[in-house]
């Protein structure tokens, strides 16, 4: 296991991804009043930052989000609420998909629930006879993991401060290469083994090569938004599965709790690394690297003819050129897409107006840790589906509340704490209280 744990960056990169932000519109151009709405509504930037490296992604977004001038507060609030429910659902769907993939894999493929070694970040074993020793070991594991994450975050802040963009870019590409090729190969191998399907190496090579190459292109360069989103979901699921397999039981729960607390501190405290990154990006007036951020943004340009009000311009396909996300690190491309608007053919004096509607962005780390929680619930719940479902609903409700807070506070907020807190509470209470109750009811065939 040392081989693929050797690359810190990949691991770290995949560790952090807790940014939740609503997409921002770029500097608004002169548009009629009505147009300003959607952009204002997206203004609130919410970001959970976690771990090293990923901060970059978050910062740019956060910066972008808070920097839009000239908003009308009333209109903004109304549009925030109007768009609020739609954005919540735009996040519910990918989070649900990721969790479904993880739970389906955990329940069917034995490989991910077998114990076979631990990461080097969690060196202490949990095979000790006494409870106290086990607890101590898991706390120590958590401390080591968290300190690695903090160190990497600070490292990335430093890199960003000294403008080592190429280094960061290279790091991100390496990590996503590993995820898209190596982990996919392992995953495919295990799935084929579970269902006893034979596949020859040339076919395998073709499949994995195509999958990985298209993934790299979609995530780092340009590609259809849906494909990009699908790849990010798959990559998050793969990473979550790795964590579920290699984190020992108690350490996983303590790490989840600790990461949420760290997320909260790093995003909200004045001296938090993520906050520092944002400030640096703001000072430089630079766009932030989106990096590992899932974006549900739809960007289109609408051209309107001044002379001819009836022709509503060319509505171009939703296209997200710069929303590249790295599966592991935040190597940023400018967070808002450049407007790709070829000039409309037609009458002179046409005024080209651009309207961009941004979706919501959620860091990949959030996906990963939500899926780790639900996957662990599915793996250890003694075959019980109630625990898994309870955690699932709890996480969705936490996400909903976080988005509500985002709409209220309109600043970067961490996406992990509320969801993970609810998830943990519901996991332990459902496993210990509800499960015996429901089992006893079912054995007597009683219905409540």
């Amino acid at each position, binding site marked *: 296991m040392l081989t693929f744990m050797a690359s810190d960056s990949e691991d770290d990169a995949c560790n952090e991804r807790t940014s939740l932000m609503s997409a921002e519109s770029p500097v608004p151009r002169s548009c009629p009043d009505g147009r300003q709405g959607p952009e204002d509504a997206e203004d609130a930037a919410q970001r959970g930052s976690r771990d090293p490296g990923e901060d970059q992604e978050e910062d740019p977004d956060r910066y972008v989000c808070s920097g839009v001038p000239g908003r009308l507060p009333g209109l903004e609030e109304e549009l925030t609420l109007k768009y609020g429910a739609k954005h919540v659902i735009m996040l519910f769907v990918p989070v649900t998909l990721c969790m479904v993939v993880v739970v389906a894999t955990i329940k069917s493929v034995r490989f991910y629930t077998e114990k076979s070694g631990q990461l080097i970040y969690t060196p202490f074993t949990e095979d000790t006879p006494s409870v106290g020793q086990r607890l101590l070991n898991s706390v120590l594991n958590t401390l080591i993991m968290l300190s690695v994450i903090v160190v990497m975050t600070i490292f990335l802040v430093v890199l960003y401060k000294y403008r080592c963009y190429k280094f960061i870019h290279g790091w991100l590409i390496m990590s996503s290469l590993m995820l898209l090729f190596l982990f996919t190969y392992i995953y495919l191998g295990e799935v084929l083994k579970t269902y006893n399907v034979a596949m020859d190496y040339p076919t395998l090579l073709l499949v994995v090569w195509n999958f990985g190459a298209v993934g790299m292109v979609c995530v780092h360069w340009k590609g259809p938004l849906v494909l990009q989103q699908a790849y990010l979901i798959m990559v998050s699921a793969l990473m979550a599965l790795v964590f579920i397999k290699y984190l020992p039981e108690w350490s996983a729960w303590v790490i989840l709790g600790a990461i949420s607390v760290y997320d909260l501190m790093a995003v909200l405290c004045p001296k938090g690394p993520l906050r520092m990154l944002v400030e640096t990006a703001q000072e430089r007036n630079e766009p932030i690297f989106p990096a590992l951020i899932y974006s549900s943004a739809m960007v289109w340009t609408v051209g309107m003819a001044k002379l001819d009000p009836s022709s509503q311009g060319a509505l171009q396909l939703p296209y997200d050129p710069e929303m590249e996300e790295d599966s592991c690190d935040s190597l940023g491309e400018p967070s808002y897409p450049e407007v790709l608007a070829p000039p409309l053919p037609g009458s002179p004096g046409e005024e080209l107006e651009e309207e961009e509607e941004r979706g919501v962005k959620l860091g990949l780390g959030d996906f990963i840790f939500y899926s780790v929680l639900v996957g662990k619930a599915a793996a250890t719940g003694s075959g019980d589906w109630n625990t898994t479902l309870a955690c699932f609903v709890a996480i*969705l409700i936490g996400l909903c509340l976080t988005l509500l807070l985002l709409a209220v506070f309109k600043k970067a907020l961490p996406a992990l704490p509320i969801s993970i807190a609810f998830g943990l509470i519901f996991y332990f209470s459902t496993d210990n209280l509800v499960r015996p*109750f*429901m089992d006893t009811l*079912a054995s007597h*065939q009683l*219905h*409540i």
Partner: protein
Amino acid sequence: MTAAVFFGCAFIAFGPALALYVFTIATDPLRIIFLIVGAFFWLISLLVSSLVWFVARTVTGNRDGPIEKYLLIFGVLISVLIQEIFRFAYYKLLKKANEGLKTINPDEPGPSMRLLAYVSGLGFGIMSGVFSFVNILSDSLGPGTVGIHGDSPYFFLYSAFMTLVIILLHVFWGIVFFDGCEKKNWHPLLAVILTHLLVSALTFLNPQYEISLVLAYMIMPLMGTWAFFVAGGSRRSLKRYLLCQDKDFLLYSQRSR
């Protein structure tokens, strides 16, 4: 105990709920959110009632025998009461949320209380059905023989039908309950609580499935018609709908095309 049993029971239990979800809830994001919050409230009510039962069991010393059965009956009745309390709590929350939405967005009409009653009922029902049936469903995929020790071989079918009737009943109870709360009329609330207690108490007679299932299925259309009339339906509107003479509905469905 094959895929046929699994899919058959799954669709019996969750088919109507899925259809209701797809046709009425999935189109509007706000309704999906209210559905999930409703499911969450039911989950909390289950948590509280499990806690009460657990505490009661620990206090009486975890003994086996008849006291276990009495504790379970106590747990079921308390659970029903707590579910209805949380339904009321959800009503209060929705009322506040609706008022909040109205003050912020005066021109856009938010969802009406009747719609929220339906959505919350469906949320409660889906969560309740899922929690009681999913474990049984997953067992039905594996190997085994139903009732090999002399129990009824119709266990899966019974559970599926019972789950279905409870989901539908929750929808109707939600509508009637919220309407009672809106009109400050306490009789519908009492009726809902009593019918819920009755349906749960009938399951104490299991494994005599006939009584509990048939009675539950007799209560369900009664509640259904009550909910229909409470929600504003009438014999005339039903006739108009069935004979395709409902102009509003036809215009509406044409517009959406």
